[in-house]
């Protein structure tokens, strides 16, 4: 193959990684507009030229949905941006979203060969660039939809898992209806991840493609309440169900004073601001209580989002308390760096011990304790151990708990045949995504208890194909059975 890339492999290694322009930290903490501004076409082409077009592209084995990375990079080098977007969409229907929120430094970019000596290729920012480019042309290609099979599938939840499953099933000719509990589709993409990281129009555009493929979305429809899984199967004429309801159950600390006013789960705090636009209060009717000193507990993406959203509500100080060190913090590197640049104050090896309230039951102080790292625990991370007598008290008026999630029991309570483990996480056959209830498949955070967008999408693709194959067998469809299992990551 003759490469369009004018650079020799040696020259490619000399080109530094392109830096995506960003809004200045001083300005951006006063708005909800996107922080990274995107690459220019020239920057994108230069960045893509750095790719060595490896014959055995290790980067691809780091991508849970198997995006053909060198192929789309080559198309960028050739200036075929729209074609590059289509290439990605062969296996990933949400490139503008994944390009923005994938933990690339743990996935594709981590395994990029160039990264062994220099900075890896900016796969995520290039993915974002081509998807944005296609959208900016005003003509986003709608994937072909297969001959109608006559099968009806209900998808529960419209997060990345549900959207991916709907896409794979619609593409194969099944009639798909999504049921979503909230009044907007997108799941965590909409209510959890803030607009300065993922603008609404990006999510809407990617969902619009699904609608144009004939997928129906019914909002305000919590399954288990409005209709049960059994009713969908027995009364509403659904042939199979895909469950992608996520892990929306916030964990609390059980520490004294936790129910004081001003103490939020990250879910509530972010929902009030991202979904209900409490930052626009009173023009939007939903309030949020953000005081002058905000404390966020945790150091995952959720904690970074809560802290950075808080900054934009103009308090005096925002603090993050985390019981381990920066090295163990689960957040994407970019989010952590952005939080530091924007002025969040970090307290590593520090955990809350109680919350102290005022006479009106509002939190006024948080007591914390210093920790040191002890022996590794089951997860392989060193366990934080409290240091006696190291208690300190900070004045705060808002506390956001970003401690992780359990699985919301709305579905499993109303459908007990769906087996869960003791934490409520739905158990599935890993090859097919099928649950213990026949004809019901599941993927995403509901089967992991909380992971990433792209992992949810990868699993959803597996489960959608498992569901598809099940339909072929059950309904005697004249279609080829498809391989489901993707290469393990």
């Amino acid at each position, binding site marked *: 193959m003759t490469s369009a890339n004018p650079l020799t492999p040696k020259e490619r290694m000399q080109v530094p990684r392109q830096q995506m322009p960003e809004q200045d930290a001083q300005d951006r903490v006063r708005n909800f507009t996107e922080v990274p501004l995107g690459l220019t076409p020239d920057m994108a082409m230069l960045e893509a030229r750095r790719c060595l077009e490896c014959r055995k592209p290790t980067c691809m084995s780091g991508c849970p949905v198997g995006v053909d990375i060198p192929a789309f990079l080559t198309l960028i080098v050739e200036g075929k941006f729209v074609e590059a977007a289509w290439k990605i969409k062969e296996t990933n229907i949400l490139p503008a979203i994944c390009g923005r929120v994938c933990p690339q430094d743990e996935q594709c970019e981590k395994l990029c060969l160039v990264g062994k000596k220099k900075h890896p290729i900016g796969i995520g920012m290039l993915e974002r660039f081509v998807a944005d480019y296609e959208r900016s042309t005003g003509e986003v290609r709608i994937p072909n939809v297969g001959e109608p099979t006559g099968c009806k599938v209900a998808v529960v939840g419209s997060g990345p898992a549900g959207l991916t499953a709907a896409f794979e099933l619609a593409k194969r000719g099944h009639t798909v209806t999504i049921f979503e509990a909230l009044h907007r589709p997108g799941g965590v993409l909409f209510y959890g991840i803030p607009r300065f990281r993922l603008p609404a129009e990006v999510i809407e555009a990617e969902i619009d493609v699904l609608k144009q493929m004939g997928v129906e979305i019914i909002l305000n429809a919590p399954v288990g309440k409005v209709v049960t899984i059994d009713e969908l199967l027995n009364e509403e004429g659904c042939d199979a169900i895909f469950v992608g309801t996520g892990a929306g*159950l*916030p964990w609390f600390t059980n520490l004294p004073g936790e129910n004081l006013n001003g103490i939020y789960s990250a879910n*509530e705090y972010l929902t009030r601001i991202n979904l209900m636009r409490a930052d626009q209060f009173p023009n939007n009717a939903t309030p949020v209580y953000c005081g002058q000193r905000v404390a966020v507990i945790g150091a995952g993406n959720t904690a970074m989002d809560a802290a950075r959203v808080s900054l934009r509500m103009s308090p005096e100080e925002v603090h993050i308390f985390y019981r381990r060190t920066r090295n163990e913090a689960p957040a994407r590197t970019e989010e952590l760096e952005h939080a530091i640049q924007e002025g969040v104050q970090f307290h590593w090896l520090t955990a809350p011990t109680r919350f102290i309230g005022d006479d009106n039951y509002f939190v006024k102080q948080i007591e914390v304790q210093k920790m040191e790292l002890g022996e590794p625990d089951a997860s392989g991370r060193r366990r934080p151990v409290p240091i006696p007598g190291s208690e300190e008290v900070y004045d705060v008026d808002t506390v956001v708990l970003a401690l992780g999630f359990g699985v919301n029991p*709305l579905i499993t309570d109303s459908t007990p045949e769906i087996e869960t483990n003791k934490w409520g996480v739905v158990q599935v056959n890993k090859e097919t995504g099928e649950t213990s209830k026949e004809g019901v498949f599941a993927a995403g955070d509901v089967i992991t208890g909380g992971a990433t967008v792209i992992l949810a999408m990868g699993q959803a693709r597996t489960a959608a194909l498992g569901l598809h194959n099940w339909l072929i067998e059950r309904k005697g469809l004249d279609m080829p059975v498809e391989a489901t299992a993707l290469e393990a990551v």
Partner: protein
Amino acid sequence: MHKIIERTDVAPDTVMFRIEAPMVARKAQPGHFVIIRIDDDGERIPLSLAEWHREDGWIRLIVQGVGYTTKRLNAMTVGDALLDVVGPLGRRTELPENDTLVVIGGGYGAGAVLPNAREARAQGRRVIGIIGARTKDLVLVEDDMRSICDDTYITTNDGSYGIKGFVTHALEPLLETETIGAILAVGPVPMMRAVSDLTREKQIPTIVSLNAVMVDGTGMCGGCRVTVGGETKFACFHGPDFDGHQVNYDELVLRQKMYAAQEKAALDHSCKIDEQVATLT
């Protein structure tokens, strides 16, 4: 969109609506509530179901205008529509299935207890209704209550109608004369607390419906957390009905005031807009 098909002013600042909501009507059970949003800038607020019609696909709500959203709602008329109505939410009320049921409603609670009263009546149980209000004008759903219940008592704080005093004044004598299997009390927190205090010693099962501040109503945010029997529960998901003898009412009252300052700001803001509109027209 959910069209308003009937609107009746039942008391000052209190409106009864019939609203199209077929998905809710199909599955509604006594004790359930909905979450509504008027329009895209609107807040999600919880409202109890007072009645529903499965075939015709409507629900009935009673709305007390206490703040920005409820006042806006009460200004809407037949033909207007709500953007979102989600439900039925919460768990259905579970009442011990024996002996007399006493339902007690204060404010919108008088409507909220009707579905349980109807169901108990249909099961052939003796049902006694008590409606409490500050004054005669504010007595709600008296006709409904009388048509369902074997006996109905009205109490007003100022004595302008029925028994003078609180709902407990009507309940207390009944505790002596009736074999009460269960009490359901829905209304302002002080009322639910007073009823629970009265029945605690006699160990009469007393169910209350907790009106915590909510967002999603499905167990996703934890904003509605209440303390019951020393444990944190989510009112929308584990409730809204709980054992009245176990509830930490002090905390509930304080948590309901979380947005007091903002609520005032929202109302002032809307008054300013009204003024501006008035000067334009």
